[in-house]
């Protein structure tokens, strides 16, 4: 009945200790492993045949490749394709975690901000380090717009830097909040059925059809959101990588 209960982290077994901190294998880690193994199995099995006329599995794998590849090309340019493995991994990982989370009794890993923040910070550091490696200090011209009078330049530059630093926050919060809110809404509507049945008896159970219909609709919406948020996460990764590849233009 508690809509927050589904997000609880449970220690399945202990792996070891690091100082005073226990390193445990949690349900979150379990679902991440399931996602990774599931994805690996799917992609390896789907591409094993390599037929000219693809099977359904191979077609799905090719579609996901084409989808991500065209996304990377259109946002980060042809040069961005060197980051294709990175973006593809992030997209498929987030997508499968979101989708696995929709299965009843499954744990939604991406509803924890620590996971999405870790992904977003990885992207942020990749952009920063690759930008510095590729362009040197010239990369910081990203913060200095052209054609701005010198006397307001300090103000503009500090605003640009703050805007740059705020990227991983909006990047991670968006995915986390969407998944959290969606799953809470599902649980709350499911709770209405139990409450109605408990309070009004048979009439209540009959009335429970209404929230149940709502759950069916919300689950469909959540499928859309799960895909959309994985897509948005990957597109923003591409847009940020584009800044690292061409900070100038």
């Amino acid at each position, binding site marked *: 009945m508690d809509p927050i209960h589904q997000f609880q982290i449970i220690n399945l077994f202990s792996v070891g200790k690091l100082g005073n901190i226990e390193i445990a294998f949690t349900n979150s880690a379990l679902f991440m492993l399931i996602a990774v193994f599931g994805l690996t199995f799917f992609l390896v099995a789907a591409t094993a045949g390599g037929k000219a006329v693809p099977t359904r599995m191979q077609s799905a794998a090719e579609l996901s490749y084409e989808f991500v590849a065209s996304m990377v*090309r259109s946002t980060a340019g042809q040069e961005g394709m060197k980051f294709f493995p990175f973006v593809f991994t992030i997209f498929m990982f987030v997508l499968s975690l979101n989708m696995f989370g929709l299965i009843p009794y499954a744990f939604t890993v991406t509803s924890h901000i620590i996971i999405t923040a870790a992904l977003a910070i990885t992207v942020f550091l990749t952009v920063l380090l690759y930008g510095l490696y590729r362009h040197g200090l010239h990369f910081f*011209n990203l913060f200095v717009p052209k054609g701005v009078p010198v006397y307001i330049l300090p103000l503009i530059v500090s605003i640009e830097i*703050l805007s740059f630093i*705020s990227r991983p926050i909006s990047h991670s919060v968006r995915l986390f909040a969407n998944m959290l809110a969606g799953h809470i809404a599902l649980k709350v509507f499911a709770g209405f059925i139990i409450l109605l049945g408990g309070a009004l008896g048979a009439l209540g159970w009959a009335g429970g059809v209404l929230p149940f219909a709502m759950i069916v609709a919300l689950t469909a919406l959540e499928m859309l959101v799960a895909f959309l948020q994985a897509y948005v996460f990957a597109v923003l990764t591409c847009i940020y990588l584009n800044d690292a590849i061409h900070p100038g233009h």
Partner: protein
Amino acid sequence: MADGTRGKGDHKEPPDDEAALSARLQRLGERLDSASRPSENVSGPRQSADASAYARGFRMSTELVAGVVVGALIGWLIDRWLGISPWGLIVFLLLGFAAGVLNVMRAAGVVRENKLND
């Protein structure tokens, strides 16, 4: 067996369609190549990240909030380290708000990204 029944109207196409089929396949391949080439050669245009109004709205709101939060956090930390409370918070909250608005305008495509000529 299959060869025997092929000529008897089960198959409406003439028997010499193997050559025609391979010619059609080749033409299709050429057309696919020419259709997919322009998108490959385009370098670095930006598309907005939005696939639906819902995602769009959510993106705008998080961009604004993220800017303000980062500004407030940096201002608070500067206050603590330099002991100039409340000036750091005031200045950086305002800067953060400006950064948030800039983020939103960029996400909406109102303002272009920085353009420099290397």
